[in-house]
């Protein structure tokens, strides 16, 4: 059931991404709505898969690489639905839905099952810490999608290319505002996640090791998040600079994760 629902979600995310690609190529805006609906069904299947995990293993899918990637994928999928429905920017799914598909595909590949990892940091604190952090990273992913689309649309408008991308991609101002709010909302979540982790460590006398990959990645992510927001300050082309910063920060966060992950001796954990 858990794997089956993950595969269903993956298939639906891929269908939605394909529909968005066709929508871009043919400039049929109706397909964007259909793609959003398909992605919505995918999210539903994804939720059912994670609920099956919870009922089957009697634990939340927050420990271990597979479950963690799956939850992060779900949050990115929800972010995609959110911007499509509330922000009326369905085309952002062109980036967000494949990211969700990639994450859920990776989760399915490594296996969505408990890692057997015994955590020192457990209970409601841990749940809060992980969920808050993942919401923060989902916000960064939305900001990344907005940044990519902003830079591409900016180039199209400057070069007077009035083709499919010009028509399909949202306006620059919309992408800029959405990207800004994704960071503004995401940063407090990540900050709280780090604060909860730190407070727990202090409370139970387990000080954080500066060399711990989780600590390194968390603190670096937070600093990069702040840097992406600060890119909006000052003069000049703020929106363009902010878009570029969101893309670069996201790339650094992902690359850092992969590097730390490769160097991580324990195979089961998220890091």
């Amino acid at each position: 059931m858990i794997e089956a629902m993950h595969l269903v979600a993956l298939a639906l995310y891929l269908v939605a991404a394909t529909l968005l690609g066709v929508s871009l190529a043919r400039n049929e805006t109706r397909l964007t709505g259909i793609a959003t609906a398909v992605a919505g069904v995918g999210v539903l299947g994804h939720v059912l898969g994670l609920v099956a995990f919870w009922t089957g293993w009697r634990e939340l899918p927050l420990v271990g690489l597979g479950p963690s990637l799956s939850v992060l994928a779900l949050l990115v999928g929800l972010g995609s639905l959110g911007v499509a429905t509330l922000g009326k920017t369905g085309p952002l799914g062109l980036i967000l839905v494949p990211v969700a598909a990639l994450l859920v595909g990776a989760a399915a590949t490594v296996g969505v099952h408990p890692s057997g990892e015994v955590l020192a940091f457990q209970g409601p604190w841990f749940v809060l810490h992980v969920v808050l952090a993942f919401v923060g990273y989902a916000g960064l992913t939305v900001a990344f999608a907005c940044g990519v689309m902003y830079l591409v649309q900016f180039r199209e408008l400057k070069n007077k290319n009035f083709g499919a991308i010009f028509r399909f991609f949202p306006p620059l101002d919309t992408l800029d505002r959405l990207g800004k709010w994704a960071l503004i909302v995401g940063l407090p979540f990540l900050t709280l996640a780090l604060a909860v982790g730190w407070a727990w460590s202090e409370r139970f006398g387990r000080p954080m090791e500066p060399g711990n990959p989780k600590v390194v990645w968390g603190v670096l992510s937070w600093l990069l998040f702040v840097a992406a927001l600060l890119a909006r300050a000052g003069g000049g082309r703020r929106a363009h600079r902010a878009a570029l910063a969101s893309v670069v920060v996201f790339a650094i966060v992902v690359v850092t994760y992969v590097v730390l992950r490769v160097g991580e001796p324990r195979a089961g954990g998220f890091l």
Partner: protein
Amino acid sequence: MPLAVVGLSHRTAPIEVRERLAFARGEVPAALVGLVESGTAGEAVVLSTCNRTELYLALPDERRGVEAAQSLLAGRLGQEPSAIASHLYVHRDRYVAEHLFRVTAGLDSMVLGEPQIQGQVKDAYAVARETVSPAGAMVGPALNRMFQTAFSVGGRVRSETEVGMGAASISSAAVELAKKIFGSLRGRRALVLGAGEMSEVTLECLRGEGVRTALVANRTFDRAQELAAKWGGEAIRWDEFGAALPRVDIVICSTAAPHPVLTRERFRKAIPGEVRNPLCIIDIAIPRDVDPALGAEPNVFLYNIDDLTQIVDDNLGRRRAQLPVAESIVAEGVEDFWGWYSGLAVVPTIRDLRDHGERVRREEVERTLKRLSHLPDADREAVEALSRALLNKLLHAPTVRLREAAGNGRGTAVLDTARYLFELDREPSDEG
């Protein structure tokens, strides 16, 4: 009642004819009342826009009604109907519905898919519904259903196809470009250089999109004031427009100057550093008003008339590609409406046919039973039942065929034949 549309449009008549034939809104009720009270039309709607004047009619007598409508239109030009016959078209029955649905969907418009026509058709219908006369309402079941179906078809064409998508004029292309940069234009500030016709049309579009402040600069200050007053803007002196540049998001240039009025030097003087927020400059003047080198400025988006034309051409091409889908939606609407309308027309004939048969049956049974007075009640009832069964058997096939004919569009001819063969138009008192 047969349906007809009599009218002319941009496809059949030049503007000199169209503008003289067009009805002002206030003139329409009198024309409708005239048509209905004279008995030439049972129902009527007048659609009059700058591109078409059409009379949609449900006619008790088709030939007389069409002639009256032609005379009405020709009379507005002070001419005989034959003098404008080459400009007029007449569509009948299901082709009336097809024409109206195409018009409402914007498929018959000068600019394919333009959205205003649906509102104009709704206005025409509303005026007809609001008009009453001693002879009754202007809109009855036939035109009511036809116009309601037209709005539904128009809505479907707009929502299910992209026939109405994208800018189809230079001014709306300018707005489309600005919206791709700023999203909503609500609250944005615009500067208009030049106060000619193109400036005015573009300013109208921008104001329609919610642009908050519109500064108008023109070499002739009076003209700038005139345009600013008309569209709720603010006139500024020509030599002040440079100082206004840092305060605006959109610049529309449409002067008749023979050389660029917004050079890079002038721009640099107005905005010495990097442009902080995107600035959209639309140069629709020929020769161009803006130094093309300005387009290289980092946050400046500069477009000229060729760029706008390219957008319009692309959009119109995409609209044309959607035509087959739109036409199939129109065809579905026509089938739906005509099936209903033909069915409506066949009901009285079937009823008359059955009444006629029942009357004949009753008379013949009564006559027969008078001669067979010795029959017991049970046998008399058997004769009654036999006559009813015979009548039902005989009328079953004609009833089915009439309904089928109504459904496949041959209703009028078959109905006329049935009424002729069974003498259904004669008063009952005339019979036997």
